[in-house]
């Protein structure tokens, strides 16, 4: 059996490179025809991790101008890098959570999620105490006069920020990755909207902008991060970033501060005096879908 060898002469224009060049020229021409310089720049923007400092600065300037015009107020788009020697962990006290959904809406307000179509990063599941942690019979749409409802407990789920994240592995373009502080982030401009990450995530934590996101100007939070809560566009995936714009400033995520029962805890896993380390060392802790070896840094615990 002979192996067929294909050789390309560098001088000859093969079909692939011809098509590439043709596509680039025509799309550039199409964009130029629109006459919108910002749109061209956005179209030609490379992935965030390969950009130089100067290019990032230019992009931020462009985005801030775009958002300021769209929402009628000054926006800041931070690109603050991870704080050295931090590796974040999150803990949620299942024995305290009462299922009031205050975290869900605090998150929406902080992170500029689309109001219509509605998009929530946190999903609070209601489960029966008799059945234990059971996803099949869990109810996301419970609607009681008062919570907690008799005989039920609540499991809020958002991104688990896995140490071994299947979403990151499944992304064909490298638009999502884990930063050194352990936050799994998305470059919305590099995301192609293929939704492979959504299929890979065993927690249903990633959400797709099927429609053009709507965010009323008066509700927009102008303190944003490039990899976090800046306004998104149609056709990209988004998810919880542990409020990257807050935690890299030393603040707690919005859901931690909103929880009326104090069930949500956040801190640095590398700091032995942190709350999160106290929980891991002293409480009964569980992680969701442990068998999948995703190694979440989101720990559920029972304080009682």
């Amino acid at each position: 059996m002979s192996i067929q060898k294909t050789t390309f002469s560098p001088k000859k224009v093969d079909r692939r490179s011809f098509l590439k060049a043709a596509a680039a020229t025509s799309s550039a021409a199409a964009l130029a025809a629109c006459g919108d310089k910002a749109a061209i720049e956005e179209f030609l923007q490379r992935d965030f991790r390969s950009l130089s400092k100067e290019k990032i600065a230019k992009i931020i300037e462009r985005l801030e101008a775009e958002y300021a015009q769209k929402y009628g107020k000054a926006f800041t788009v931070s690109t603050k890098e991870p704080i050295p020697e931090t590796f974040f962990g999150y803990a949620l006290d299942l024995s305290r959570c009462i299922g009031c959904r205050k975290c869900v809406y605090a998150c929406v307000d902080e992170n500029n999620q689309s109001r219509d179509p509605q998009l929530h990063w946190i999903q609070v599941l209601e489960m029966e105490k008799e059945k234990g942690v059971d996803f099949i019979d869990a109810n996301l749409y419970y609607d009681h006069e008062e919570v907690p409802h008799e005989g039920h407990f609540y499991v809020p789920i958002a991104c688990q920020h896995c140490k071994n994240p299947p979403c990151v592995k499944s992304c064909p373009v490298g638009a999502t990755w884990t930063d050194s502080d352990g936050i799994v982030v998305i470059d919305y401009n590099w995301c192609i909207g293929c939704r492979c990450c959504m299929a890979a995530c065993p927690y249903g934590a990633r959400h797709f902008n099927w429609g053009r996101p709507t965010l009323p100007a008066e509700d927009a939070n102008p303190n944003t991060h490039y990899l976090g809560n800046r306004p998104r566009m149609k056709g990209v995936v988004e998810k919880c970033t542990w409020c990257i714009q807050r935690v890299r400033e030393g603040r707690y995520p919005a859901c931690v501060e909103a929880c009326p029962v104090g069930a949500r805890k956040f801190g640095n896993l590398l700091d032995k005096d942190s709350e999160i380390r106290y929980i891991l060392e002293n409480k009964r802790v569980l992680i969701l879908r442990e068998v999948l070896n995703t190694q979440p840094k989101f720990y559920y615990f029972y304080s009682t």
Partner: protein
Amino acid sequence: MNKFWFKPGLIVLFFVLILFSSLLVIGQQTADKDKMQIQVPPPPLNEDTFPCSMCHGDMETNPERRELVDFHENIVLKHDEENRWCMACHDDKNRDMLHSASGELIDFSESYKLCGQCHGPKLKDWEAGIHGRRTGQWNGEKKYLLCAHCHNPHSPKFPHLKPEPAPIKPGKKK
């Protein structure tokens, strides 16, 4: 060599050293405890009823269990009510203070010391930042709340809340 070790003076010195170092350790621990004075916002006291001495100052204390009429009738005691009445926690001599089971006066701003007498593990968790809502900085100053900010001391079970609206089911319009 052997004779050297059996000198009585050396043995005494040895014990004195042990005593001294243990005292140092204890001193250090109390210093840590003092440092751990937790900063909390002012207690949630009602301006109409506090300071208690406004009314109770010259009033004779009635320690009897009774139905409260005219004043404090809104207080429902559901906190080991079979065994306790007002003076179990409020001090009858100094009306603007609380007192511990052993009679030590406790200011309202440090009421967690009172609660912690029975709820020791909760107090420990609260000090560690596990029990209760924490705001502030994860890597800096944390803001604490007193027990009484979330739990009504007379009826401490956390109240039921009306949940925020459920998410819209896919395919359904608002």
